[in-house]
């Protein structure tokens, strides 16, 4: 009679399961890159997901972007006015928003809204056997569910980031205009004086990386949800927490790399 032997741990149960999880996640990412080039392509689903990720996040992004720009300018004013340097406000705000705040705020908002949504939706499909149902009807659920969502978040995040940057700058302009009566043109001229191609390029790279992270983490957590409705909640929560954590780690790494290119 055959019985599967109980597993022996290489190091300890926790460390073993950490490395097994890491390997699973890497396999998941590798599978994404394999499936992305393999036909058939789910163009309709990708467009639908782009709409879900992009259009449906617009209100929240507009609100947070605008408030971030406005509040940042308001809070920076007293320090600069001590040195009589309020004329530097536009360029200071532009550097802060374009280099750091726009990609980061967009990513954190998207992690909360889009990441949790993906984790919960896929988690719910997993525990109600809808993913298995796709599998047994000879449809590749990974391509339909994962590839489309990860592509959508990766494509939409740079666009949302640009939009957040623009709205944030509008918020900043409103505050500057209120206090200094600066015109729209001179505010933006002053703001973009200090912005280089590297700033814009690194922000675009950041937002692509963040978009990919949010999509892949949400899909991974949802795809591996277990234990019924409790598992769905856990998948949604883990999607947000892990993507936010990874976004901050990536932020540090990309800033370090970008700074090494600065003169």
């Amino acid at each position, binding site marked *: 009679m055959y019985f599967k032997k109980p597993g022996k741990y290489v190091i300890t149960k926790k460390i073993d399961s950490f490395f097994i999880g890491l390997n699973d996640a890497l396999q998941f990412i590798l599978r994404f890159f394999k499936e992305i080039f393999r036909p058939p392509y789910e163009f309709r689903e990708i467009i639908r997901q782009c709409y879900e990720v992009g259009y449906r996040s617009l209100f929240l992004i507009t609100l947070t972007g605008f408030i971030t720009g406005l509040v940042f300018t308001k809070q920076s004013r007293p320090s600069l006015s001590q040195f009589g340097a309020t004329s530097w406000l536009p360029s200071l705000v532009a550097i802060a928003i374009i280099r750091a705040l726009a990609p980061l705020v967009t990513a954190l908002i998207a992690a909360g809204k889009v990441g949790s949504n993906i984790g919960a939706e896929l988690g719910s499909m997993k525990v109600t056997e809808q993913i298995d149902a796709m599998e047994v009807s*000879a449809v*590749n659920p990974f391509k339909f569910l994962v590839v489309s969502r990860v592509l959508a978040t990766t494509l939409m995040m740079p666009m949302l980031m640009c939009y957040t940057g623009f709205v944030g700058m509008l918020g900043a302009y409103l505050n500057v205009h209120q206090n200094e009566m600066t015109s729209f043109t001179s505010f933006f001229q002053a703001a973009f004086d200090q912005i280089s191609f590297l700033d814009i390029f690194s922000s675009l790279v950041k937002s692509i990386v963040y978009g990919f992270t949010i999509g892949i983490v949400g899909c991974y957590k949802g795809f591996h949800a277990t234990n019924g409705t409790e598992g769905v909640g856990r998948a949604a929560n883990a999607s947000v927490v892990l993507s936010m954590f990874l976004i901050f780690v990536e932020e540090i790494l990309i800033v370090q790399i970008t700074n090494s290119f600065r003169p």
Partner: protein
Amino acid sequence: MEIETNNIYHGEVLIHVRDLYKSFGDNHVLQGIDLDVHSKENVVVLGRSGTGKSVLIKIICGLLKPDVGQVEVLGKEVAKLNDRELRQLRLQVGFSFQNSALYDSMTVRENLAFPLVRNARHLSKKEVSLEIESVLNDVGLSQTINQMPSELSGGQRKRIGIARTLILHPQIMLYDEPTSGLDPITSIEINKLINHVRHKFNTTSIIITHDLTCAKSTGDKIVMLYDGKFIRQGTFGEVFSTDDERIQDFYKYNFIDQ
């Protein structure tokens, strides 16, 4: 204790399971299962909840991998197939889930179109629509075509789940607890549907259930799963004409109209 059935089905063996073992941690679910399912035969796997009945059909359709053992479906060893080969095989194997597993963000029409448009890309929109209407007619639910799964009753969901598998015209149907959670009248309707599907689509089926009425009305061969092993098999009458307490207990707690 096994009874050799006077099997009228001497056709080709479509599903061949040998020495199948499956464990989840320390829970040894299947412990040496052997099963042959012949062409056009309806085999019912009976057993209490948690005895591994669903695990067996999930292994047969490749959703789970066995620890040990051989599972051949339509002459192909499932565990050795790559993704593409497995998908080809699954076109021939329909799986009706216990909870129907309808895509809850799609209407009934979209649920049925989903596998069809992805597996028969040459079909025009009109052909897809005709196919959907035809299969909905077969399960008697044409009127639900634009409804969402949340608007359907349990019995309707089961029927739509069956329709979604039938739309690919499979040779083999695997039913996981087709009557669970349904009232007796709806259960009888589902049993009739299973028999209708068999005759209209010429399917070979494995039906997983603990409902004796379902087993009696749909099964040519009944196999009784207990503690991960088949303890008895034969026709309905043969399986229950025994003093074996494990089988008699199971019979006692089921209502059946003899």
